[in-house]
């Protein structure tokens, strides 16, 4: 037997190792493949939501017409007439012969455009009497046509838009009245009704999710840190503490919908109704956050206890040895060392809470909500939805444009999650200590 030749046994062992390594590589490759497919799907389907088709319309703000519109019940219909008249005149000036009848105007313009104009007039009353050039959203069908989602074939049975309208759209592109641009409204805006996918945005639900995450953080972190420190460092090991420990683990495994029912009964019906706390009402992020806190609490307690356990016993012994009290040992030495672990556990708990819709279903946070958030208090109590709920609502709507919006919402949700994780990593870097 030469040292330079592998014995059959060594060969076999080396082959087994190579096989194992290739299995591992294959597993990683498969995971990467799925990740790429998933991200490709999300970006491919959702990126369209960030682009919006707009019509450039110089609107002549006739004072008499505006006064008449403001006096009627449907104020926006008066503004609609202003837009249609102005667009019609502009088309003639640019040499487009096709006429803009009310059907064509409906097919091309968003039904939210009149309100855009009205808001502009209300904000700039000095403009009345002059001509302002506004970029008004095109309808969802027109938007789909510009993005290739809607074709002349696909609208053969459509009652809202005809191929003639699309011909008109082509002419409008030719004279520069119709263009695509980045859709800030999708990032900052709020939900819109089923007729106006082009007007909808995730902004409101981002704030809703943010409010809920702040509530979860404010409720869970102090409670879970206090509970964990007591259980881990001070509590005697007896039947009672064992019982509590087992039940914390059990709670972590309870389906999230259960916490929704609990929140409805405890916060809205008992807290808001029987006791009469006015901030506890349906659809408020405060209540949503509390419901999610119930769900997240056990997870964070378990993570915090694991972090405390990971601090070497010698740290405590050394502190106690130089005369520190037990509390000093914990707060001066153990807790700072456990902090990175606690942070990680908390962020993981928050991320799980961010993605939940089930507990929100019963407390009115999966709903059509349009709120203008103003001020710190209304931020927590005004009706709102969370990001996953908004995505779910859009995914169930009829028009195909909502499908694109739902995917776009997923992109924003992922960005939100990535931001949370980056914060977690930065905090961990800052607090991390080695021994």
């Amino acid at each position, binding site marked *: 037997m030469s040292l330079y030749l592998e014995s059959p046994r060594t060969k076999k062992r080396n082959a087994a190792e190579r096989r194992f390594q290739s299995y591992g590589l294959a597993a990683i490759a498969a995971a990467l493949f799925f990740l790429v497919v998933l991200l490709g799907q999300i970006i491919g389907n959702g990126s369209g939501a960030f682009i919006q088709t707009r019509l450039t319309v110089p609107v002549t703000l006739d004072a008499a017409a505006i006064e008449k519109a403001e006096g009627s019940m449907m104020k926006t219909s008066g503004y609609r007439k202003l837009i249609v008249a102005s667009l019609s005149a502009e088309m003639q000036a640019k040499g487009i012969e096709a006429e803009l009848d009310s059907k064509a105007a409906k097919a091309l313009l968003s039904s939210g455009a009149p309100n855009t104009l009205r808001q502009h007039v209300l904000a700039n009353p000095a403009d009345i009497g002059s001509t302002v050039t506004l970029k008004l959203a095109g309808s969802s069908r027109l938007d789909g046509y510009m993005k290739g989602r809607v074709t002349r074939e696909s609208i053969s049975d459509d009652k809202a838009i005809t191929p003639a309208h699309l011909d008109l759209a082509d002419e409008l592109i030719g004279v520069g009245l119709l263009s695509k641009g980045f859709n800030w409204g999708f990032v900052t805006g709020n939900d819109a009704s*089923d007729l106006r996918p082009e007007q909808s945005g995730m902004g409101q639900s981002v704030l809703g999710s943010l409010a809920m995450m702040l509530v979860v953080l404010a409720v869970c972190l102090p409670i879970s840190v206090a509970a964990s420190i007591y259980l881990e460092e001070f509590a005697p090991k007896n039947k009672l503490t064992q019982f509590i420990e087992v039940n914390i683990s059990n709670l972590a495994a309870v389906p999230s919908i259960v916490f929704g029912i609990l929140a409805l009964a405890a916060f809205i019906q008992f807290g808001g109704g029987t006791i009469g706390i006015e*901030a506890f009402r349906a659809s408020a992020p405060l209540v949503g956050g509390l419901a999610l806190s119930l769900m997240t609490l056990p997870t964070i307690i378990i993570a915090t206890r694991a972090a405390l356990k990971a601090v070497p016993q010698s740290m405590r012994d050394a502190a106690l040895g130089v005369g520190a009290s037990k509390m000093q040992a914990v707060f001066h030495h153990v807790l700072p060392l456990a902090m990175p672990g606690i942070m990680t556990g908390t962020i993981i708990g928050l991320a799980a809470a961010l993605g939940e819709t089930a507990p929100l279903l019963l407390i009115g946070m999966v709903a*059509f909500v349009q709120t203008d958030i103003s001020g710190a208090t209304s931020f927590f109590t005004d009706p709102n939805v969370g990001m996953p709920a908004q995505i779910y609502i859009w995914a169930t709507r009829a028009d195909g444009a909502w499908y694109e919006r739902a995917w776009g919402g997923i992109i924003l949700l992922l960005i939100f999650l990535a931001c949370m994780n980056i914060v977690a990593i930065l905090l961990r870097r800052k607090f991390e200590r080695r021994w």
Partner: protein
Amino acid sequence: MSLMKLTVSVAALAVATSAQARDNVQVAGSSTVLPYASIVAEAFGENTDFPTPVVESGGSSAGLKRFCEGLGENTVDIANSSRKIRDKEVKACAEAGVTDIIEVRFGYDGIVFASQKTGPDYTAFEPADIFNGLGAKVMVDGKLVDNTYTKWSDFNAALPAEEIAGYIPGTKHGTREVFEIKVLEVGCKATGAYDAYLAENGGDKKAASKSCYGVRSDGRSVDIDGDYTETLARIASNAAGVGVFGLSFYENNTDKLKVATVSGVEPTTDTIATGEYPVSRPLYFYVKKAHIGVIPGLKEYAQFFIAEEIAGAEGPLAEYGLVADPELEKTQALVADEATLGSNM
């Protein structure tokens, strides 16, 4: 521990914000009515100084159940429903203190059968065919037997020889009730199964109707408990499948769906308004009278909803697929007077 201080202060801020009483209208109920209600809510927020109402869905029955939980700010003000409120529900409402209910019918919605755009044509449906295809028991040679049909052409040669697969709304949807009464029961009577059931039950008409509502459980009739988008997804994966949709949903998805005629009539807002198309149902919302004056904007919202400019034939609801109610003026007067359920019966 600056972070602790921060979180504690955020908690204190959140709890200390005792806001004023609820100032937005809270609506729950039918997922069929939801798009209409959200369109109205949006326009209401735009055109008035009141905040936009919050509209939840979840089905007619679930909405009415929450509506009947009691009075007060922590309960909903309005329940949307795609069917009339049941006596049982009125009783449950009364027991919880919700006695004065204003019933508002704001229009009609067509129920259509649709299949994949590129799939087979279903142009010869009669209610009897749907019953034969999906009913639990059917008449064969004058006898009531378990449904064993596998293809539509088995009982109607005018229909394509395709595997039977029906996707119908689940029992929590108001649409199901309309489907049972306007399609299954009509088909049940047309095929003679009703008479057979009647004989079986000793002349008990209620029991016979109930038996007619039974659908086959061998997987060819599928209850969809989710929204129409779920039905659409099922249709997309089964070329021969036939699904039940609302007219408005179909009209927004004409690029993916092909509508089936019933009794030779194609469903449109016109054929439904004239009653020519047989399967339609009224849409309602129910208002708690006791909340009017307490919740700001509640009566205004109800009146705004049924105004000619909104629910009329030229309004945005009709644009979305609602069949306008020819008696809208009567309803407007009813809401203006705050006439409750008992008073106008």
